[in-house]
């Protein structure tokens, strides 16, 4: 199993060094080769399970609740101006 490491890393927004690409390329291939044993199982007519315990969507009353901890939330920001998180320029 050969994986396009560059493509996957780009999708995952992971910058990788050349060394990491080589290391992960090999390791991911062997993990996915191992995962191929699932293909041996016949799963026609088997429904997928995304939650082991039956789940229902939960809705709460549509009511505004004040946010009490704005200060500590903003204090975690790497770059904050007033009440905003700053990021590098997006549009030239």
């Amino acid at each position, binding site marked *: 199993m050969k*994986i396009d*490491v560059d493509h*996957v*890393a780009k*999708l*995952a*927004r*992971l*910058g*990788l*060094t050349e060394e*990491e690409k080589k*290391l*992960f390329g090999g*390791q*991911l291939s*062997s*993990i*996915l080769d*191992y*995962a191929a*044993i*699932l*293909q041996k*199982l016949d*799963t026609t007519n*088997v*429904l*997928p*399970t*995304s*939650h*082991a*315990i039956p*789940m229902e*969507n*939960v809705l*709460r009353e549509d009511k505004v609740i004040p946010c009490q*901890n704005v200060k*500590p*939330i903003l*204090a*975690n*920001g*790497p*770059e904050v101006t007033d009440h905003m*998180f700053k*990021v*590098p*320029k*997006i549009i030239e």
Partner: protein
Amino acid sequence: MHNKSAHELQELLAAGKVSSVELTKAVIHRIEQVENKVQAYVTVTKEEALKQAQVADERLKRKENITPLTGIPIAVKDNMCTAGLLTTCSSKILANYIAPYDATVVTKLKEAGAVIIGKTNMDEFAMGSSTENSGLHPTFNPWKLETVPGGSSGGSAAAVAADEAIMATGSDTGGSIRQPASFCGVVGFKPTYGRVSRYGLVAFASSLDQIGPITKDVTDSALFLNLLAGYDAKDSTSVSLPVPDYTKALVNNVKGMKLGFIKELLGQGIDSAIKEAVQKALKKFTELGAELIEVSLPSFEYAVATYYLIAPAEASSNLARYDGVKFGHRSKEAKDLLTMYYNTRREGFGNEVKRRIMIGTYALSAGYYDAYYLKALKVRTLIKQDFAKAFAKCDLLLSPTAPSVAFKTGEKLSDPLSMYLSDIATIPVNLAGLPAISLPCGLQNRLPIGLQIIGQEFGEEAILRAAFTYEQNTDWHKQKPTL
């Protein structure tokens, strides 16, 4: 004092024979003595703990509102949010993150008057089976310092085993409470999915994650679960079933219980010393009046592969939030937004986290979704069906918790797949959402062996009854490491 269980200490506290401040000081003293060897903690909150102990003492003096955990020093795994304290998930990307709110389990601990003594080390974002993947420092097994404590709740298990905490919280996605409990010779209980609120637990794989207690004995496990369990409006996956008093399940009697032992987990791939210890435990149960049945769960062979597609897929989505915008590390080399993402995530995440994000992204990507992710979800159905068939014949299922005792530091680091296979007995339980406990059942060369008891959905009481009976009739839980 630090080497006693919570229920023993609660008696002393309630009788006024010892104060919470004295107890907390004793535990801090113990931490100062052994922490340089074990390295179980990321943060020790000495001063804050002593303040909480004072408040607990006042509560104990007034005899008001006393709970079984009032005044007891408890450690919290560092992926559970604690307002005003570091919550790092043992990751460089969250190394300076101060949670703006408490996780529901932390709120419950505070309300009960417990003393939060510190935050414990773990594999980064709970991804790992040895705590070697911590982005901060490794933790060492108190029984033999050259071996790993297991993972990902390795810090919590090591802290309890080394008497650096009376109890600790853990989280379990594929065995992360039970396997370290097994390696460190303590009791670890993963409740049914939905039994304990995950609000404020930093998400790894949301359909599998569950919080539970790590304790010195089964009685403490029941006491701790009484506090943790229950519906929480802040976690839409928590379940609104009533919470029983789990201490009522602590009955020293297994007569008439039907116990199934899992054939696949007493065969190939399991060390002979482990098999022997578990066989002895099975024999003990029959002597105590339980009926033993051999059961086969053929889909177990596929569980590790299934898990290592589903968990990374969920993780790759959950960990997309670490982008350097609102919290955590941001790369200094960020001339535009995209390079900021790339560099922040490269610098902030460790190898195992990167590996799992890559596997998950791949399994969810166009052209591979059906073959990997969807296929894994279908096999998950088969695993659940196998459990249902087994439980039609018996009340509980028994197996080893791990295929070996604690392995040497560094031994499995370069081979991720062999590390993954150390979770072979615990992973199927998470895939099916079931509750399971690990408790000590033997020693091999002074390293603990764990027995896993699996129950049906919300069948925590039957597990506790069997575990309690075993514990009352053996003395493995009394064995202690010498540090």
